[in-house]
Each structure stands twice: as structure tokens, then as C-alpha cells.
């Protein structure tokens, strides 16, 4: 039955989209119909076979996403329904969620497709015009919209039919309305995301485009964090908004329009958005396949630096085992700064956490954890810990995973200092630096004593997290190709982590009643972190060897130093 239905649907689709009307529509828009269908088939095949890893639109990633969201959105739907929300509020919640999820998935997806384009490079010398290529790409992205809409809205659209619910839910009408509204929102968000990149391409010089695209990917997270911050001051904002007095002339124009000034603002907003989308999309159609190659060869130049007498690298070399340790640290630092894949994966997730962390601490810095009320600083070690976990998780998956061979000719004796250099780098960048910053902020607010205790405790706990996190660096850094569905799975793992951490924060809340308890736990965590780090580094080192040479014999010995008696 299912097979018959699918076949019938496919046949209908084929008749509709391969028919003369659709072909004429494509031609009218400068799209070559034959090449369009070849490219649509190509992108579908590449997606099915997971050719372009690190993207979310392959079939496996999207199925995983849909299944995870069937569950989460179902739970959310039941909870909202239980509160007796009206149909309007219920629908609005899921439309906002759809828009947010879609922008989170689409922006990196489009960035990957346009700014780091595998297909573009291979197809650049083929006689394909920009409009045809873009139309095929947009068609492919529409699949992502359908999956997200189905995942986030499929179950919630049906939930109101199953039991008692709030006002406005009309049986049979509501599910259809819900799904169509979500699809509409999905398409609008999709066009907005694409046009955003069109504007980037139009405004940003080619050599800065990759960096700009990396920053844009953080944009939805940034907006969400800002909205969170604003929601803490919602009353003040409302009264400020109400106090604004518009000039008489503006109100006069509004009076002449049906619906008044708000309708005028809405129409103007709609017109501006439409213009922005159309112009943005047009910028993408012009000559993407010509721009691709320039993009790949226009890497930003590196600022020339002379050798420094003192640097963190030289400190790492002194304390962690010499030049190999420095090599590990420097490679890690440069990779974290410049690697596109790392930025793409890490930036998106970490930016939200960092903004969230800063917002929480600035809002809650007036209450110390030693006070009787709840302090937001309890989140500090766990949010930094989550950033560490993500950093470690994504470090394995660099852009240049094919350069892994270069580690194979490294002398065997260099691996120990090398992994110590990596650990030293991570500890400095992800543990020491943020805590030093927060020590200053918190000491200013609470005084030195409380700040020192909190930072000591947090440093010990995050060092422990780092020791565990290093085990997430799978095999040799940084030589693995990003697997599909990584982001989707990471999102699910993050949710589980946050649930576990909320229990730990409860314990902290009780523990911070006593300085002695804090001191004891800090010492225990520090000692634990030390021993766990030592064990993890030994394991990390052996995993590197194993990864380079699974047979277990020593790898390439040509450059090994001779043993000294």
C-alpha cells in the first residue's frame, strides 16, 4: 500500500514538474530545465550518499533530526496543551520554533554550499548558468524545510485532536492549518536565509567572505540570546516602547491608510523584506560558479610576525616537553582560529553558550553563591564545561583531514609532548583565560574572597571536564572527516547534558553554604582532574599511535631519533 502510494505521488510529481507549464516557467526565469533536473538529481544522489559531509541535508541527518524532534515537539505540545493554551498561542510557539530551528540548520547549510562549495568547484567549468545552479540548489534546500516542518510540527499538529484543549482548536481544520502555516513560515525563512548570503556576496569582498559566513552562522544564536536578555527586562522595554511619541506627521499619514499606522508599518516592512529577498537572491544567481574558484584561492593573508622572546608557545615548550609540545599547542591554536569546519561546527554551538554565559553572569553577578538565594554563577563551570566538550568533540573534524599523513612521519617519541601541548593549549584557552576574566569581574562585584573561592572551584571542575573531554577527541587530531548528523546528535547530547547538570547545580547550591565544603570539593576535584588528565593523555597518545598504525607496530621510523645508550 505504502509503495503504491509513494509511486502514485512520484508519478503525480513527475507529471506536474516535468510538464510543459513548469518547464516554461523555468525557461521564463532563465533556467535551463534539462540542466536543472540533472542538477536536482545530482544533489539528491550526493545527499543520499553523504558526499558532502558536515552538511545537514543528507537523508540520514534529516531522518535523525525528524525522529528526535517528533519526540521533543510531542512532549512540548502535550505540556503547552496541558496549560490550556489557545490555538493561536499554540500555533505561534511552534511557528517560532520552526523558524528558529530552520534558520539554525539552513544558514550553515547554505554557507557550506556557497562558501565552501565542493559541487561548485567541480561544476565550475560546465556550461551551467547561475540561475539554473541556484534554482537546483534551492530546490534541494526545500527538502530540508519539509523535514524540519514535519519534525517540529508533525506531532504537535495532531495533539489537540487527541484530548481536551484550549480555545480555537477546530477538529480536522487545525492540523491542516498548522502544517500549512509551518510550511509557509519555513519557505519564508528559507528565502530570507538564502537572500542573506546574497547580500553577503554583494557587500563583502571575496577574501573576507568565508569569515563573514562563519560569523553569520552564529547570528540566529546571537538573536536568541539577545531576546533572552531582553526578556529579563520585558516590563521596562514595554513601558519604554509605550512612552515613545511618534511625530504628528507620521500619525497623519497612518490615518489616511485603512488599518491605521500599524497597518502602514506592516505593509512597509513586508515590502522591504520582499525587496531584500529578491535583491539578495538575484545577487546569488549572477555568477556563483565563476566566484567559487576565486573564493577558494583568496584566503586571507596571515600577518607576518617576528619570533617573540616570550610567548605562550615558548611556555608550553618549557613546561610540557619541548618543541613537539609547542607544535601541538601552535597547531591547535591556529586550527581553532582558522579551520572552517571547526568554526562552522563550534562557532554555532559555542557562541550561544558564551553569550548565555555572559548574560547570566552579568545579570547575576550581584548575588554570590555564598548568599542564601540562588546565584546564576552556579552555571559557570558547567557552561564552560559544555564549551570544552564541544571543542574537544569538533577538534577531530578539521577541514584538512586529508593532511593526516603529515603526522605519520613524526618521530614516535614526539607524541607524548605533542598531546601535552594540545592539553596545555586547551587548558589555557578554554579554562585559564575565561576564569581569569571572570575573576576580575566577580572580584569587582563580590570582593576578592568569594570570587577566589568560586573561580578556584570552577577551575577545578572545568579542568576535570577537560580531562574527560580529551577522550572525545577521536583518534588523531585533527584528521577526521565530519560525519553526517553530527550536529543533530550533538544537539540531543547537549539537552541530556543540561538535564544532568541541573542536578549538579542543585548540589552546588547546598554546598556553597559552607566554605569548608567548597574547599574540600575543590581540592578533590583538582586532584581528580590531575590524575584523570594524566590517564587521559596516556590514552590519547596511544589512540594517536593506534590511529596512525592500527597494526600496532611503530609507525614510519625513518625520522626517529636513534636511541642513546
Amino acid at each position, binding site marked *: 500500500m505504502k509503495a503504491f502510494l509513494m509511486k502514485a505521488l512520484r508519478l503525480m510529481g513527475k507529471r506536474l514538474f516535468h510538464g510543459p507549464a513548469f518547464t516554461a516557467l523555468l525557461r521564463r526565469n532563465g533556467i535551463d530545465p*534539462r*540542466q536543472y533536473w*540533472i542538477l536536482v538529481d*545530482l544533489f539528491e*544522489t*550526493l545527499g543520499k*550518499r*553523504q*558526499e558532502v559531509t558536515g552538511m545537514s541535508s543528507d537523508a540520514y541527518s534529516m531522518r535523525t533530526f525528524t525522529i528526535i524532534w517528533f519526540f521533543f515537539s510531542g512532549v512540548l505540545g502535550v505540556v503547552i496543551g496541558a496549560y490550556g493554551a489557545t490555538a493561536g498561542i499554540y500555533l505561534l510557539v511552534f511557528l517560532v520554533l520552526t523558524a528558529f530551528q530552520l534558520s539554525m540548520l539552513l544558514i550553515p547549510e547554505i554557507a557550506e554550499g556557497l562558501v565552501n562549495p*565542493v*559541487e561548485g*568547484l*567541480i*561544476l*565550475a*567549468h*560546465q*556550461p*551551467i*548558468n547561475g540561475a539554473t545552479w541556484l534554482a537546483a540548489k534551492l530546490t534541494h534546500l526545500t527538502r530540508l524545510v519539509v523535514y524540519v516542518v514535519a519534525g517540529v510540527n508533525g506531532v504537535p499538529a495532531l495533539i489537540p485532536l487527541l484530548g481536551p484543549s484550549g480555545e480555537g482548536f477546530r477538529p480536522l481544520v487545525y492540523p491542516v492549518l498548522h502544517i500549512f502555516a509551518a510550511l509557509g513560515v519555513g519557505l519564508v525563512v528559507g528565502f530570507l536565509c538564502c537572500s542573506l548570503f546574497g547580500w553577503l556576496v554583494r557587500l563583502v*569582498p*571575496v*577574501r573576507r567572505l568565508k569569515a563573514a559566513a562563519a560569523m553569520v552562522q552564529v547570528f540566529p544564536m546571537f538573536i536568541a540570546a539577545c531576546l533572552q536578555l531582553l526578556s529579563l527586562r520585558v516590563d521596562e522595554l514595554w513601558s519604554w516602547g509605550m512612552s515613545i511619541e511618534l511625530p504628528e506627521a507620521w500619525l497623519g499619514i497612518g490615518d489616511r491608510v485603512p488599518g491605521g499606522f500599524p497597518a502602514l508599518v506592516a505593509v512597509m516592512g513586508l515590502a522591504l523584506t520582499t525587496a531584500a529577498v529578491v535583491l539578495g537572491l538575484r545577487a546569488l544567481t549572477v*555568477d556563483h*560558479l*565563476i*566566484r*567559487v*574558484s*576565486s573564493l577558494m*584561492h*583568496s584566503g586571507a*593573508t596571515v600577518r607576518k610576525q617576528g619570533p617573540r622572546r616570550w610567548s605562550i608557545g615558548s611556555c608550553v615548550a618549557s613546561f610540557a616537553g619541548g618543541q613537539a609540545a609547542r607544535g601541538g599547542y601552535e597547531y591547535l591554536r591556529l586550527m581553532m582560529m582558522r579551520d572552517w569546519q571547526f568554526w562552522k561546527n563550534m562557532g554555532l554551538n559555542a557562541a550561544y553558550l558564551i553569550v548565555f554565559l555572559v548574560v547570566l553572569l552579568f545579570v547575576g553577578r550581584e548575588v554570590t553563591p555564598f548568599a542564601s538565594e540562588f546565584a546564576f554563577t552556579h552555571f559557570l563551570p558547567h557552561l564552560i564545561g559544555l564549551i570544552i566538550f564541544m571543542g574537544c568533540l569538533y577538534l577531530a573534524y578539521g577541514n584538512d583531514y586529508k593532511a593526516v599523513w603529515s603526522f605519520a612521519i613524526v618521530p614516535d617519541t614526539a607524541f607524548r609532548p605533542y598531546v601535552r601541548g594540545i592539553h596545555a593549549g586547551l587548558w589555557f584557552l578554554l579554562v585559564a583565560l575565561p576564569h581569569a576574566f571572570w575573576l576580575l569581574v566577580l572580584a569587582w562585584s563580590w570582593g576578592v574572597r568569594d570570587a577566589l573561592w568560586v573561580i578556584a572551584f570552577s577551575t577545578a571542575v572545568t579542568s576535570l571536564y577537560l580531562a574527560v573531554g580529551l577522550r572525545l577527541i577521536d583518534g588523531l587530531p585533527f584528521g577526521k572527516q565530519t560525519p553526517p548528523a553530527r550536529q543533530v546528535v550533538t544537539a540531543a547530547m547537549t539537552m541530556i547534558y543540561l538535564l544532568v547538570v541541573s542536578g549538579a547545580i542543585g548540589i552546588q547550591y547546598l554546598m556553597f553554604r559552607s566554605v569548608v565544603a567548597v574547599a574540600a570539593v575543590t581540592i578533590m576535584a583538582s586532584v581528580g582532574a590531575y590524575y584523570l588528565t594524566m590517564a587521559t593523555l596516556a590514552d590519547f597518545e596511544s589512540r594517536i599511535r593506534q590511529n596512525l598504525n592500527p597494526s600496532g607496530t611503530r609507525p614510519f621510523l625513518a625520522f626517529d631519533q636513534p636511541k642513546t645508550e
Partner: protein
Amino acid sequence: MDHQRRPSGHQSTVAVDGLTFSYGSNRVLHGLTFALGKGEVVGLLGPNGAGKSTTIKVLTGILAPDGGSVRVAGFSMPGEAVEAKKRIGYVPEAAALFESLSGQEFLELMGRLQEVPEEVLQSRIARFLEHFDLAGVRLRRLDGYSKGMRQKVLLSAALLHNPDVLMLDEPLSGLDVNAGLMVRDLIAALAAEGKTVLYSSHVLDVVERVCDRALIIHKGRLIADGSLESLKATTKRGRLEDIFRQLTDAEGTVSGVSEIIEALRS
């Protein structure tokens, strides 16, 4: 090949006049001017970073020039790039391929994008794969191909639509001796058929045997353009290697070698 659009007036198959190109603020081509005629096999030579691959990319419509004019098969670049690309076969320097497609699928894709009729396409693919010794692995995914096998796929893809102009960027890279000899003979045969071939390579011996004429680029400037005989006569050198060294200021390579050895001893 029957193309619907006719070129907007042409004499040479490839005509480049005052071509300039920059990657960001880095200018890599400084006013190149040359022309390639029908049936000519022209070697494009130059040291690393001289601008050879960039020149080829501009000629194939992959990069848009900053200045000057470029016409290929009578179509101007980049304005008429889509039409020009239908007449160009290109073997890139770095073999980027869709790794998850099989050799057969990749060639089918390239041929269909070039609008080769299906029957002709299948027949050509079968014959190319047979002659390049790839028939047995045609259904294997490209990620399982060796470098030489990938190069053969790229060469086949470049020829599928029977182009008027061939732009070959290090086409023999990774090929075994027999395949290399076959490609050399093939280039000569294609030239005899009236195809124009621009052949970029660092292997001067091969260029000397394959090409009628050489263009030498150095630091983005064309420093020599002529038949191999005329270059030999002008520079009073007997071999292309010596001509190349003289023109690209590489005669100091001996002192360079001793400096490297000196650095290793320090």
C-alpha cells in the same frame, strides 16, 4: 558538434588581449596577450606561482578576468561563458571529483551537462573507459580510484562532448607510462583533427615532444611566445629546459642548492 549559437565573429580559436587578474589584492596576471589558432598544440610553461593555472581558469570561464579581453571559440569571457564552455574540454590541475559517484556515473553527469545525446554519450563512455583500462572499475565509486585512474576519468570527461578547445593542466599527472604515451599520441591526433590544445606542464621534455609552440609565463607576465625552434634560435640554447632556465632567471639554482645544504649544516 552542432551548436545552436554562432560565435560573434572570430579569427583565432583563443584570443587573449591585456588579460589581468587578481586574487584579492594580489595581482597574479599582468596584461597577458596571446592567441591560439585552430589545430595548434601550445605549451604553457612557467615556474610555480607564475599564473599558469589561473590563466587556464580564466580561459575556461572559471574565473572572471579583472581586465583585458578573452575570447574562446569566438565567445567572449565571462559574458558568453556558458556558450564558450560548451566548446571547451578542461582537465584541472587538482582532481576534484564527486567521490561518491562511480566512474560511469561521473562521466554520464559531465556528458549530460554538456548536452551530449544519450546514445552517443554511452557509446563514448564505453569506448573511453575501455581504452583507459577503466572498464572493469566503471561501477566502483571514485573514492576507490587511484590518482592515475582519477586522471583518466578527468581526461575522459574533458573529451566527452568533443570540444573544439582543450585546456589541459598537468594532464599526465599520476598516469602510468603507457597511459602517458597514449595521451601524448591522443593530443597529436586531436590537433590533427583541428582541435586547439593548451597544454600546461612542468615536464619540459613532454612539452618539447607534444607542442608546436610555447608560452612562458613568469610572475604573471608573458616573457616568451614562439615556436620551439624560434625560441631556441633566439636564446641560443639547444634544449627547452635551458631556455626555460634562462628566461625565468633560474640559472642561479646551483647557488640555491648550496644555500639549502648550508642551512641544513647550520
